[in-house]
């Protein structure tokens, strides 16, 4: 298995350089390719140029002028009712006042949106793409960056970027990939476990404790199957736990560390499997399915990257009233999520206006309200004016979810995006395939 197969650089592969609008083809395959000329005409160039595209705007005023009347399609994960409602009812009217129409396109997985862009680029649609903004982070961002799918060096144009802290590591690196002005931060997230305190009376305080609890209570715990986003981060949490803490796992990927650290991880998870829901015979296919199992009372713990939504789920009776956050002594990983602007967007200026609006204090406060969406802000609290700080201070507190300060205490950084595919693949072969 070639583990680091995602890394391509222009040095290694001259065909990647943008001075080759279409990659060169070897004579040996010329006949096969010629036979399919009609089809290639359909498909256009084979590989999109991975050279990052730049915005071409000189000033913010130019952007605002150009944006007038544009329609921006924001592709985002559609499984979060509160997020959908926030974008439709709060964000869209705010950008409409600035002459930009915002349309939300729900997708079941962010990779669908990126795939759409890559497919359009592959088909030669380089300036009239249908995707204008994607709610993205992590591996999807780094994959898009490798393939040249993002517009870069545009975030500096946004006036509201000044309200974020330039030295915040969560905002300057996205799962170890430098952001380089290719995406605008939207909110922060903290991976969190939740449990039903009515059933689990003596909750564990470490991840190892959670695994022990699962063994002591067979059938009452499970996690989504990677490559689901939530399942994937759970596997990374277990990796740092069995390796002796998050410091023991190097953030940057290398084959040696992978070979050294992962046997213990997969041995632990394969050993845990018989104690899981359905004896580890099958796994929930997505975070939503795990949440459903938790809501139905089939398991006593669930996990999420968006703990703020728990308040509403308990209030509406979807989750048991005893639902509480499980804080771990060693901390959990935290990250930020972003808005990426595809390089072939037809409404790039409009997308920039939307991105700038999302960073305004009003929007970040509205989004942080647990009753609206409850997403943690990316703004730098200390640089805000006293009036602006008061808006954040006035947000209601939740009985279920502690504040971001408490949640993110001893927050650990995400492993680099190159870790994710080999870890997920290894899980399929060594845990799923081992039964």
């Amino acid at each position, binding site marked *: 298995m070639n583990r680091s197969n*995602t890394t391509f650089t222009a040095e290694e*592969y001259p065909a990647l350089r943008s001075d080759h609008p279409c990659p060169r083809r070897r004579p040996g395959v010329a006949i096969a390719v010629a036979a399919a000329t009609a*089809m290639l005409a359909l498909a256009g160039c*084979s590989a999109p140029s991975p050279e990052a595209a730049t915005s071409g705007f000189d000033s913010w005023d130019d952007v605002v002028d150009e944006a007038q009347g544009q329609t921006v399609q924001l592709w985002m994960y559609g499984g979060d009712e509160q997020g959908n409602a926030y974008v439709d009812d709060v964000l869209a009217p705010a950008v409409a006042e600035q002459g930009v129409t915002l349309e939300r396109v729900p997708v079941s997985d962010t990779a669908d949106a990126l*795939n759409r862009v890559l497919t359009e680029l592959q088909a030669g649609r380089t300036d009239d793409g249908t995707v204008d903004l994607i709610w993205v982070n992590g591996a999807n961002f780094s994959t898009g960056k490798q393939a040249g799918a993002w517009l870069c060096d545009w975030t500096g144009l946004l006036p509201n970027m000044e309200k974020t802290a330039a030295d915040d590591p969560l905002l300057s690196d996205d799962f170890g990939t430098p952001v380089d002005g290719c995406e605008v931060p939207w909110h922060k997230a903290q991976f969190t476990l939740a449990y039903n305190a009515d059933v689990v009376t003596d909750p564990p305080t470490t991840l190892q404790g959670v695994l022990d609890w699962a063994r002591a209570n067979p059938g009452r715990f499970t996690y989504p199957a990677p490559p689901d986003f939530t399942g994937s981060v759970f596997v990374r949490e277990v990796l740092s736990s069995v390796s002796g803490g998050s410091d023991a796992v190097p953030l940057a990927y290398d084959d040696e560390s992978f070979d050294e650290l992962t046997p213990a991880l997969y041995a632990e998870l394969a050993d845990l499997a018989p104690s899981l829901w359905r004896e580890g015979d099958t796994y929930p296919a997505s975070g939503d399915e795990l949440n459903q199992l938790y809501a139905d009372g089939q398991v006593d713990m669930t996990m999420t990257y968006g703990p703020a939504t728990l308040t509403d789920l308990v209030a509406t009776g979807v989750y048991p009233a005893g639902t509480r956050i499980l804080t771990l002594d060693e901390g959990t990983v935290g990250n930020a999520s972003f808005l990426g602007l595809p390089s072939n967007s037809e409404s790039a200026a409009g997308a920039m206006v939307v991105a700038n609006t999302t960073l305004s204090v009003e929007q970040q406060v509205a989004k942080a309200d647990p009753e609206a969406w409850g997403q943690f802000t990316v703004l730098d609290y200390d640089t805000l004016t006293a009036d602006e700080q008061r808006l954040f201070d006035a947000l209601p507190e939740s009985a279920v979810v502690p504040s971001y300060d408490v949640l993110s205490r001893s927050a650990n950084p995400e492993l680099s995006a190159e870790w994710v595919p080999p870890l997920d693949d290894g899980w399929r072969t060594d845990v799923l395939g081992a039964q």
Partner: protein
Amino acid sequence: MSLAPLPTRAPVSGRRGIIGAMLVLPAVSLALVVLVGGIGAAVLQSLGLMPLVGPVRLSFDAYSAQSSSLPESIAVSLGIATASTGIAAVVGLAAALVIVSGRWGGRIVAAIGAATVTVPHLVGAAAIGLLLADSGLLPRLLGIEPGGWPRLVGGPWWVAVIAEYSWKESAFVALVVAGTLATRVARYDETAALLGAGRLGRLRFVMIPLCLPALVVSSTIVFVYTLGSYEVAWLLGRTYPEPLPVMALRLFDSITLTARPEAAAVAVVTTAISLAAVGLAFLALRRTAMWR
């Protein structure tokens, strides 16, 4: 007793033949563009000739990359498709015979069948999931705890997946078969009855031979559809082993750019199996009495 062969149509020749060919040309060329373009693109991608990143290089790596799990996936997909097609054919044939019987029961079955065909598979899968899951409607109505309920959704025998396909596709088979029967069954059936054939004899020697071509064709469509359909198996199935379409879409959506050729390879394998199934079905069709 043997069936009188249908009058064979004289082959159309000359000007009328050319005009006929011209009339279907737009439809055929459109189908060809989609078919050749789509399958051709999948074949090219699977052979490494249309990479997203990296050099253009002819290789069979994409086919060997999943070689460890591909046989199991093929087996699971074939199993689901065969079971679903078998049940749908038997239930559909029985329903079609009831429909053409002309009694009031037939009208009810026809109405149920017509209603079922309009339900999208995704909605059907969600409904079956709500009904049959461990904490679904059925165990709750029966008062069975999740632990005591058989593992229909996500279980080792893919029961919920096969149930969804069988339910939806038996309605499809029933309507297709009933449609072909309705036009001519009464004449043959009454003639046979007048000649003294009993109910079983009429079923054996009249109804089933009349049904067979339509049954073979509709079952082939069902088989190929279930083999290539994604959403039902993903929603109601289990994590491992994966049916071919689930595997193809997982690889296609993978954040690893180099997984796309592998997804295309799985799609090409699925297509090849489908084409082989269609080929076998046509061979079988030529052997039926009605075709000759």
